[in-house]
């Protein structure tokens, strides 16, 4: 045997098989990144999601449902937007310029006022209890839309703090639909080749590993070695995309546009991942639980979100990506109308707002309303289940006909007593 031959680069096939873990199917896709024309065409038709999560609760009164100069309105003004008649808080001047792309819903009434239980309930779409743990929206979309042909995991989560493989998001779908979390926008742990291993050594050791497996599997069941080769292929694939996770190579001009905040950098990384074809990109921002000093908190934190979010909307629109990318910006609930003694607002799930845009979503509209003081919803109330129906529909997935298959048990993908909010759909 000639070992020189062993030391060729691994073949660059793109696999359709599932990411992150577990033994998976056997089909290997045929489409490589070497066919950019076709890849772009496919990318154009594929649906993707950008999910911006403000951990804690964004105040609806300091964002999408301002009630200036009223009892609970807070100190801020409302400003006009590019859509006549729609006003939002003055803290969002740049997003106001993007309103023609956005849909606002002001009639949310969700069910949980607590963080620890509320985050899961909201991100799982709060379905009827069947004794199973439902997947988070990202895992749900990863399962329903698949990874596409990007060669990247379908669910990538850019977040502050630590990263890793967050399989718990996947619930009953199983670990392979979990999130690859880029903590602090950094590459996954152990992705980059250790300094002590040269490129040549890396090639050699992988080739020797394959050789060992080929010998071992002779006259054995093949499932184990196949599963092992599969994850090594995935590792190699991810390593080939390592440049995507390197935030030091983000374009300086764009960095300036997205702003100097960590969130700005993470959103720009998110744009790069969407452009690379990742199905579901979640970007988190922390520090939105303003029980104390709510107005100063929003005063200095919102501009960071405003800058990056508006730049992202502009870029998605300029790149014609809004037809295929569903964008949602939300937190787990709103904040109380009443202002407490340490000038904060507490948790409020009974009348709050969020914005969305892109694939399948009507543009430049406001749906639902609260009363004059902003305390309660007037007219139809909407729960997170309605939004899951709306978002699945916007992604071309029929939520009333599509079922998960949980080891033979068919399960609805969204609360079956609810339906899409038609006024939000294009």
């Amino acid at each position, binding site marked *: *045997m000639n*070992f020189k031959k062993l030391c060729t680069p691994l073949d660059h096939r793109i696999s359709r098989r599932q*990411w*992150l*873990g*577990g*033994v998976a199917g056997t089909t290997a896709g045929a489409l490589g990144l070497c066919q950019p024309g076709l890849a772009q065409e496919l990318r154009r038709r594929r649906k993707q999601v950008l999910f911006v999560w403000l951990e804690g609760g964004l105040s609806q009164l300091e964002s999408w449902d301002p009630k200036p100069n009223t009892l609970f309105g807070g100190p801020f003004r409302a400003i006009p937007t590019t859509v006549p008649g729609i006003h939002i808080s003055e803290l969002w001047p740049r997003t106001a310029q993007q309103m023609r792309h956005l849909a606002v819903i002001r009639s949310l009434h969700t069910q949980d006022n*607590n*963080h*620890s*239980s*509320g985050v899961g309930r909201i991100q799982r779409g709060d379905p009827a*209890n*069947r*004794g*199973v743990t439902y997947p988070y929206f990202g895992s749900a979309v990863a399962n329903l839309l698949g990874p596409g042909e990007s060669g990247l995991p379908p669910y990538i989560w850019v977040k502050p703090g630590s990263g*890793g*493989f967050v*399989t*718990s998001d996947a619930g009953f779908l199983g*670990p392979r639909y979990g999130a690859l979390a880029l903590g602090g926008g950094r590459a*996954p*742990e*152990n*992705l*980059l*080749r*250790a300094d*002590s*291993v*040269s490129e040549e*050594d890396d090639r*050699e*050791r*992988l080739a*020797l*590993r394959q*050789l*060992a*497996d080929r*010998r*071992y*599997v002779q*006259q*054995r*069941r093949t*499932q*184990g*070695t196949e*599963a*092992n080769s*599969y*994850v*090594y292929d*995935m*590792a190699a694939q*991810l390593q080939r995309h390592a440049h995507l996770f390197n935030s030091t190579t983000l374009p300086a001009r764009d960095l300036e546009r997205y702003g100097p905040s960590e969130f700005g950098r993470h959103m720009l990384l998110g744009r790069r991942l969407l452009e690379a074809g990742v199905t579901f990109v979640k970007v988190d921002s922390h520090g939105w639980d303003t029980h104390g000093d709510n107005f100063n908190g929003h005063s200095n934190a919102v501009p960071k979100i405003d800058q990056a979010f508006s730049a992202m909307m502009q870029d998605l629109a300029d790149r014609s990506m809004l037809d295929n990318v569903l964008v949602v910006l939300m937190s787990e609930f709103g904040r109380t109308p009443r202002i407490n003694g340490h000038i904060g607002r507490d948790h409020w799930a009974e009348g709050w707002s969020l914005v969305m845009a892109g694939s399948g979503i009507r543009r430049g509209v406001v749906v639902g309303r609260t009363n004059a003081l902003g305390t309660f919803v007037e007219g139809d109330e909407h729960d997170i289940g309605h939004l899951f129906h709306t978002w699945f529909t916007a992604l071309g997935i029929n939520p009333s006909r599509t079922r998960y298959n949980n080891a*033979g*048990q068919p399960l609805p993908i969204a609360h079956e007593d609810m339906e899409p909010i038609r006024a939000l759909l294009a």
Partner: protein
Amino acid sequence: MRIVISICGIWLFAQAGLAQESLHRQVDALILANAKGKTFSGSADDAEYLRRVYLDFAGRIPSATEARRFLDSKEVDRRTKLLDALLAGPEYAASMEGHFHVMLMERLGDHADWKKYLQRSFADNKPWDELVREILAAGPQEKAPGAAFFLSKRLENYGANPVDYPALTRDIGRLFLGKDFRCAQCHDHLTIKDYKQHDFQGLFVFVKNVSLSTAKTTTPGVTEKPTTAKIEFSSVFGGDKVQTGPRVPGLKEIAIPTLKKGEEYVEKPDVKQQKPGVLKFSTLAALSEQLPTPANQAFNRNIVNRLWFVLMGRGLVHPLDLDHGDNPPSHPEVLDLLAKEFVAHKYDIKWLVRELALTQTYQRSSQLPPLVKNAKPEEFRTALERRMSAEQLLRSMLQATGMTEVKAAKGVPTFDTMSPTFVKAFASEPREPEEEFSPTLKATLFLLNDKSVLSWLEAQPGNLLDRLGREIDNRKAVEELYLSVLTRLPGIDEAADAVRYLDERKGRRPVALRNLAWALFASTEFCVNH
């Protein structure tokens, strides 16, 4: 050939009802009969057996020295002798603790007292019914500190989420009765006619008044409030309200004694003294008395099925927690026989695992019989590749890399210091049973690039790479490497390839040795118990 004939003979004896034949022979006969003439894999060779039996009963692969000693032995009964030595050896208790910790806690958490409790129990060869009695009664603390962890970990809550009593109820059903009543919480199971809502609710009554102990101690503990009434439930699909008191599925409901308010305790709880009090009627005590008993067939079937899974890689009932009429065992007679004999031997765990390890079924090769492409796993004609736990992998890597021989110092890894890292890299998420080999991207990246593991493959005085580096004969170095990592000598082609690989890299032999070693560690052969 000789073996097959003898097995056939035994099979005839067994059929004739000569039950005094040892259990392992009876089992083999039944497995053989079930195969209806299909071919079986041959016996594992000494090296394969050696590795398997070390992993199962010492929790690690053998050292090169231990391997040489066994492989050089010419004794006819060397396998049984080795097995008995390991069963009596100092690592048996920790290896069994490993199997049962993963099985019972499903990576929900870890506690030093719990591990100590399990290890002591296996060291004493505590009967399974007694072990379960202590786990379900959460102690008593003085006698069995740590036993409460099974309950207490499941009684913790996170933030505003309520304690997940339904999950605790399900886990008791799954892990001690082999029945997952998950979907029977709100209605009779839709697809499993044996699983009734009544079963779930009856089991639920045992635990619904139990909560985490507030006593300020690091030892896990639970407390219990009086249970004074039955619960009432109805199906979410409608229907009449039904009542149940505490009832172990398949057994009789336990009557709740009528006690006046204020008279529920033999000894009232004392918050200041941190005394939980003693109830006149404790549902936990009732559960621990009723569930682990010979009369409870589900209890007996569950444990022998789970021990079979531990050593054979697949349950006779599969999945392990779906024992019901429409999911019959692959070998009903084997399951019945094991259950009956285990009870007859007073739940003697060491006896049962020894009998199982003595079967030909256990000792078969994982190589398929000639011309057979795939053998159904439930036929047990070929040994199954089993998942290695994070703990087994760590112990084996420390052993194989020779890091166990490096003088203890800061930075030199030990099982205790590296355990959390390996659990993070290789264990499943909480409540994901670790039942099959399921490599993950996370674990792969860890093996590829984790700096600590890579450093074990740098020469350090006394470790594997140090030994290999000092062995100037490449052929001998390759033999040492294979024996240390894969517990076998290289085949002729393997040795030739590896020697050539080293010969071609004379100028950089240390990294070449490291590359070879790494490749073996990352191979499927190393990563499974085959």
